[in-house]
C-alpha cells in the first residue's frame, strides 16, 4: 500500500509539470515582486500616483478656492479644527490652507512636471542615441562629444543657467529639465543599440532592403528598451527632485503652480518660529515619492539586467 503511494508520488514528480507557457512578462513580474522592499515601494508609488490623479476628490478642501480658505485658520497646528468644521490633520499654512490638501494638489504638479520632462527627454534622447548608433562614424562622434560635454557639467548648474535665461513657468522648467536629461537617455540607448546593431537579425533586415526607418524603429528600438525603462524611472525621480530644488530656490515654478518644492519654500519663513509642519509634511511627501521611485528603479535594474540572468 505504502509502496504504491510512493510510486505514484514519484511518477507525479517525474511527470513534466503542466505545459504552462511562461511568458516573458510573467517571468518579469515574478522576479520583480520577489523582493519585499520593491513590492512595498511599488505599492507606495501606486498610492502616490492615485493621490495625484484623484487629488480634487480626496482633499478635504480645495486649497486654491478663495471662497473656502479662511484666513482665520492660518498656521493651525496639526490636529486642530478648522472654522468650517473639518480637522487640519497636517496643520494649515500662512494663508489658512489645509496642508493635506495642498500636498495632494502639489503632488499633481510635481509628478506631472517630472513625468512629462522624463518622457519628453526620453523621446528626444532615444532618437538622438539611435541615430548616433545606427549611422556611426562622424555623426556618432559629434553627437557623443556633445553628450560628453553636457554630462561634464552637473545637472543643477545647467538647469540653473537655463531657468536664469528662460525665466519662471511650467513650460520653461520642463524645457530646462529635458535639456539636462536627454543626454543620459542618448548615451544609454546608444550603448545598447551598438550591441544590438552587430547582431544577425539587423543584418538580415538590412539584407531584405528594409528602410532605415523601419529597421531603426521596428527592429532596433524594441530591443534597446529594457535599459531605457530603468533610466526613465530613475531620471523621473531625479527630475522631480530637481524641479523641487529649483522651485525652492525661487527660480522654478511660479506661485500659481504650487508644487511640493514651492510649498516647502513657503513654509521656510515660518520655520524659525517653530511652525515646522508647513515645510515638513510636503518634504515628507516628496521624500516618499522619490524613494519609492528609486527603489522600484533599482529593482527594475536588477531584474532587467541580462548579466544577472538567473
Amino acid at each position: 500500500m505504502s509502496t504504491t503511494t510512493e510510486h505514484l508520488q514519484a511518477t507525479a514528480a517525474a511527470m513534466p509539470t503542466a505545459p504552462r507557457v511562461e511568458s516573458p512578462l510573467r517571468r518579469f513580474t515574478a522576479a520583480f515582486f520577489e523582493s519585499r522592499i520593491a513590492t512595498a515601494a511599488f505599492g507606495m508609488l501606486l498610492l502616490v500616483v492615485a493621490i495625484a490623479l484623484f487629488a480634487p476628490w480626496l482633499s478635504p478642501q480645495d486649497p486654491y478656492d478663495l471662497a473656502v480658505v479662511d484666513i482665520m485658520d492660518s498656521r493651525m497646528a496639526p490636529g486642530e479644527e478648522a472654522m468650517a468644521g473639518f480637522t487640519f490633520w497636517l496643520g494649515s499654512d500662512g494663508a489658512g490652507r489645509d496642508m493635506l490638501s495642498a500636498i495632494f494638489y502639489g503632488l499633481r504638479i510635481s509628478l506631472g512636471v517630472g513625468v512629462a520632462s522624463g518622457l519628453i527627454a526620453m523621446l528626444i534622447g532615444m532618437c538622438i542615441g539611435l541615430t548616433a548608433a545606427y549611422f556611426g562614424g562622424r555623426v556618432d562622434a559629434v553627437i557623443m562629444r556633445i553628450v560628453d560635454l553636457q554630462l561634464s557639467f552637473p545637472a543643477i548648474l545647467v538647469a540653473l543657467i537655463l531657468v536664469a535665461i528662460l525665466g519662471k513657468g511650467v513650460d520653461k522648467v520642463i524645457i530646462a529639465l529635458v535639456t539636462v536629461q536627454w543626454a543620459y537617455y542618448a548615451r544609454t540607448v546608444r550603448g545598447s543599440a551598438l550591441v544590438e546593431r552587430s547582431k544577425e537579425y539587423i543584418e538580415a533586415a538590412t539584407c531584405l532592403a528594409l528602410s532605415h526607418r523601419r529597421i531603426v524603429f521596428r527592429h532596433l528600438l524594441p530591443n534597446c528598451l529594457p535599459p531605457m525603462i530603468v533610466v526613465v524611472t530613475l531620471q523621473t525621480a531625479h527630475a522631480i527632485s530637481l524641479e523641487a530644488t529649483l522651485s525652492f530656490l525661487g527660480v522654478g515654478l511660479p506661485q500659481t503652480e504650487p508644487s511640493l518644492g514651492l510649498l516647502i519654500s513657503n513654509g521656510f519663513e515660518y520655520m524659525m518660529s517653530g511652525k515646522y509642519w508647513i515645510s515638513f509634511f510636503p518634504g515628507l511627501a516628496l521624500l516618499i515619492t522619490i524613494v519609492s521611485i528609486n527603489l522600484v528603479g533599482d529593482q527594475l535594474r536588477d531584474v532587467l539586467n541580462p548579466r544577472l540572468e538567473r
Partner: protein
Amino acid sequence: MSVFIIRRLLQSLGVIFVMSMIVFFGVNVVGNPVDILASDDMTQEQIQAFVARLGLDRPIYEQYWYFVLNALRGDLGNSFVFAEPALKLILQRLPATLELALASMFLSVVIGIPLGIYAGLRPEARSSKVIMASSILGFSLPTFWVGLMFIMVFAVMLGWLPSTGRGDTTELLGIQVSFLTWDGLQHLLLPAINLALFKMSLVIRLARAGTREVALQDYVKFARAKGLSARRVVLVHIMKNIMIPVVTVLGLELGGVIAFSVVTETVFAWPGIGKLLIDSIQLLDRPVVVAYLIITVLMFILINLVVDILYSVLDPRVRLKDVKS
C-alpha cells in the same frame, strides 16, 4: 605627454568660448534691466543716458565683442545692483564657497570610506544593510529639505547650533576663513554636513563595491595567509586599492559640490557665490550672473583638465589611446 596636454588645453579653450557665447546671448534675452533699475520718475532723456552708460543701447553682437575684450582684461562688467565690478563681487565670496565645499568633501571622505569598507567586508551583516539603506536615503533626500530639517532640529528645537551666516572669521594667508574659530566652526558644521550627505552616499557605495571586489583578490588572501593583522590588511592592502576610483570620482565631483552649494548656501544664508547667483537671478543683475557662470565654467574646465592629466599620468593607457586616435 605634452601633445596630450596641449590638445586638452585647446579643447578647453574651445569649450570656454562656446560657453561664454551661450551664456552671454542667453542671459541677454532675459527681461529688460532698464525697467527694473530706472526709477519711475526718470525722464526719457535720463533713461537714455542711463542706458548709454550701461552700454545697453548698442547691438547685441557689439555688446558681446566688448564683453570678450573686457573679459580678457579681467573685467566682467559692473553689477547693476551693487555698482561694483562683478568679478570683484564673485571673488570676494568665492572663499566662503570653497571653504564650504572642501569641508563637505572632507566630511564625506572621513565618514564615507570607513562605513563603505565596513559594509564591504561584511555584506550580510545587519549593520551593513542599515548603512546601505541610509546611503539610498542619502541619494534620495532633497538637499534643501534636509537643510531645513537640520535648522528645525538643531537650531530651532534644540538650539545647539546657529542656523545662518558664517560666524567669526579669521584671516589665513590673506583669506577670511571660518574653521579656525569656535564660532565659525559651529556655523560651518550644519551646512557642511548638509552638502556632504549626497557625496557621502556616493563614497560609501564606491568604497563598498571596491572592498567587495578587492577583498577576494589573491594578494589580499596572500596577505592574510602571511599572518598579517586584519587591521593591516584592511588599512594598507585594501584601502590603497579602493582609493583609485574614489579619488577619481571625488575629483570630478568637486565641481558638482561647488555647483550644488547654491542650494545649501540659500538655505543657511551662507555668504558664498551660490547665494549671490540666486539673488542676482531674481534681481536680473545680468553682469553678476554672467560672471558667476563664466567663473564656474572656468573652474569646471580646470578641474576636468587636472583630473584628465592626472589620470593620464596614473594610467598610461588613456594617454596612448588618445594620441593614436
